[in-house]
Each structure stands twice: as structure tokens, then as C-alpha cells.
């Protein structure tokens, strides 16, 4: 009985690991999706409304549901307290669970926002958004494939270990 319980626990643990790994991939995809849509709003607000950066960051933070909310919020807080936007942007981007390529794209935006005329900033945001969109397309494909693999791997590995234990 004890062995059976242990085997079931091992199997459940492995399935959970597989599901968690798949969920992580999906949450990374959601984060990228939200960043892309935030950049779309950013581009519009900068070019059409000439929105000031602190207000823009608060606006984006309020509508965000992933870790990007924290990115925009900490930038807004830093600017309101007289801190550097670039430093806040860099350190907040570094904390996001993104690949090196995605982070590099976002980091380059910190050097542009608030420093040039609205049109120039809009063009830069648009360029970076397009870069993230192509990364997102890749991540979507990978997520679809890897989510299945992780789930199947977790289930199979758990079953295999459980069999050995029994």
C-alpha cells in the first residue's frame, strides 16, 4: 500500500512538473502578447495624444494583467520621485521572465522614450513592436509544441518511475 501511494505521488509530481513547465511557456507567451499590445497603445498615445511618459506608464500599468504591470508601474513611480526613467526601465526589464533577445529589444526602447519628438519615438516603438511580434510568432509555435511535449514527458516519466517503484 505504501509503495503504491509513493508511486502515485511520484506520478502526480511528474505530471505537475510537466504541466508547470507548459504553463510557464504559456505565461511567457501571454507576457509577450501583452507587451506587444502595450507598445501598440504606447505608439498611439505618443504620436496622437503626445502623452507624457509618467501618465502613459500609469495607463499601461492599469490595464496590464501580467508582470508587465510592474514594469510600467515602477517606471512611473521612479519618474514621479525624480529618479531616472532609463535606470528604472533597465532594471525592471531585467526582472521580466523574457529571453535575452526579447529583453534586448525592450532595453533599446529605454534609450528612446521621452528623449525625442513624438514621431521619432513612435517610429522606434513601432520598430520594436514589430520585432517583438515576430518573436511572439516564434514563441507561439514553440509553446504549442513544447506544452504538449512537457505534459506528455511529465506524464510518461511519472508513469515510468511509478512502474519501477511498484
Amino acid at each position, binding site marked *: 500500500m505504501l509503495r503504491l501511494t509513493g508511486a502515485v505521488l511520484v506520478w502526480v509530481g511528474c505530471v505537475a512538473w510537466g504541466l508547470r513547465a507548459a504553463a510557464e511557456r504559456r505565461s511567457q507567451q501571454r507576457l509577450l502578447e501583452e507587451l506587444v499590445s502595450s507598445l501598440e497603445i504606447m505608439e498611439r498615445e*505618443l504620436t496622437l495624444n*503626445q*502623452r*507624457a*511618459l*509618467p501618465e502613459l506608464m500609469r495607463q499601461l500599468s492599469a490595464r496590464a494583467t501580467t508582470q508587465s504591470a510592474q514594469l510600467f508601474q515602477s517606471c512611473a513611480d521612479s*519618474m514621479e520621485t*525624480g529618479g*531616472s*526613467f532609463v535606470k528604472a526601465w533597465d532594471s525592471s526589464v531585467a526582472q521580466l521572465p523574457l529571453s535575452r533577445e526579447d529583453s534586448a529589444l525592450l532595453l533599446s526602447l529605454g534609450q528612446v*522614450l*521621452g*528623449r*525625442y*519628438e*513624438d514621431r521619432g*519615438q513612435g517610429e522606434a516603438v513601432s520598430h520594436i513592436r514589430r520585432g517583438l511580434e515576430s518573436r511572439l510568432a516564434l514563441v507561439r509555435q514553440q509553446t504549442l509544441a513544447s506544452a504538449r511535449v512537457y505534459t506528455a514527458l511529465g506524464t510518461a516519466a511519472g508513469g515510468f518511475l511509478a512502474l519501477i517503484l511498484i
Partner: protein
Amino acid sequence: MDSFRQAVSILPERLRELALALDPGEMVGVEEIRLRAGRMPALTCPDGEVPMMGANPVTTQEIELLVQNASRWSLHTVLDQLRQGYMTTRGGHRLGLCGTAVMEGGQVRTIREITSANLRIAREKRGCASKIALHIKGKNSVANTLIIAPPGAGKTTLLRDLIRQLSDCRLRVAVADERGELSAMWQGAPQLDLGQSTDVLAGCPKAVAIEQLLRGMNPQVIAVDEITAGEDVRAIEQAVGCGVSLLATAHAREVEDLKRRPLYRELLSEGIFRYLVMIERRSGRREARVVPAEELGC
């Protein structure tokens, strides 16, 4: 002192700490904070410019950070002002800038490599225009008045208090506040008190603003700061022709300075202004003197 603290809040940390370490008595007297790359930061006080003691020279990075802070990291929102060499910050303080101008089509597009900054602290001096208000105010009207003084002598402060006093006497005053220095508009709300019955059109060229105010707000008095262009003069003539009283300021040490400039010669020769107010510095104190334009041959 609060104005001082508010103004220096946009300075980079090192300079802000230096400024806040000043004696409270000194803070009250500071009119401007001057930063020049590679030079010691300096304060402009009533007696002139004095270097800030114990400070290291200002770096270009610090000036760049100051500009970013002043624009709230949103240069795109202040480019129109930057093209004219200044930007208005929260509280109505004015940051004047010098550097290398980037030209486009014969006009300044922006300023890069900023090497000098002058942070002028806006202060309300309630009651400083009481005597002048008594002089120029009739029963239901105000005599057209031009305030003249050299830059930094307090024309805007005096005009602001004059507007407030006339407005609190139930006169409808409309302010064409192109540079935002009179009202210090910040996110839609004036930071400085311009009175109960004052309407402000900020950020709009004076000539256009006067026309719009005349059309839309039915003012009894129109106030403008620093007449500088021919279009301003024509808009003023139009306003006066509509029976609206006018309050304005101009850079000049004395009337003769004005007469030497074609723009003002034209304005004075038409006899638009009934009174001229001259701000003079006597033994370290500023005094405003009202003189009928006739006495000065205007």
C-alpha cells in the same frame, strides 16, 4: 521657501542636496539657479550672481538629467517651448536653456548639447500690485497699462498680482499665457492664484490667444506677458478697438528704450496705453512707479 523647494526638486540629486542645504534665509532671496557645464553652479540673488559654496563644477550629464526631469522624461511634450529656448516646469518655474541649436527650414527645431541652464524661481508676491491697482482701476474698467522693466526685475510677478486683484474685484480678466508663466498651468489647473474671475488660455501664441479670448470669453480686461512680435501688437490694437482694457509687459529699462524699437514705437505712438508702470531697484529693493503715458510723451 516652498517655491524654492519645488523648483529645485527637478535638479539632479547632487545639486538638489546642495540647494536644500542653503540657509532658509538665503533660499528666500534666490531668484535663479544658474548651471553652466564645467563651471560652478551659481545663484542669482538681488545683489547679483554668487557661486554655490563647496560645489564641484556642473557636468553636461547633470544638465541633461535636469532637462529630462523638467520635462518629466517627456521632451516631446515641451518641444514647442524648447524651440524658444525655455520650458516651464511644475509651479511655473522657468528653465532657460542654451546649447547648440538644430535648425530646420530657417527655424530652431530643438536644442542639443545643452551647456547652460537657468532655473528661474516663480514666486507669488500677493499685494505687490495693490497701489497700482488703485491707480489704474475705474468703476467698471481698467486703464490700459504697460509694465516695463529689464528681464528678471519682476514684471510677471507684478502683472500676476495685478490680474488677481482686478479679478477679485469682479472684473472678467482673460489671460493670454503663451509661456505658462502667469498661471503656471499644470495638468489643467493653474498653480498660481489669478483670482476669482480669470480665464486662462495657456500655451497659445499671444496674437491667436487674444483673438480667441475676444471671441469666446467676452473679457473686460486682457492680460499678456511680454509683447515681442508685430502680430501681438496688431492683436492688441484689435482688442482695444473692441473696448477691452489691456494689461501688458515689455522688456525695457526705461521708456526711451521702448521708443528706440519700431515695434513699441508704433504701439506707443497710437496712444493705446494710459499708464506705464516702471519697476526700479532702489537700495536692493524693487519699487513699482505708475506714470501717466502723457507725461512721458507717449
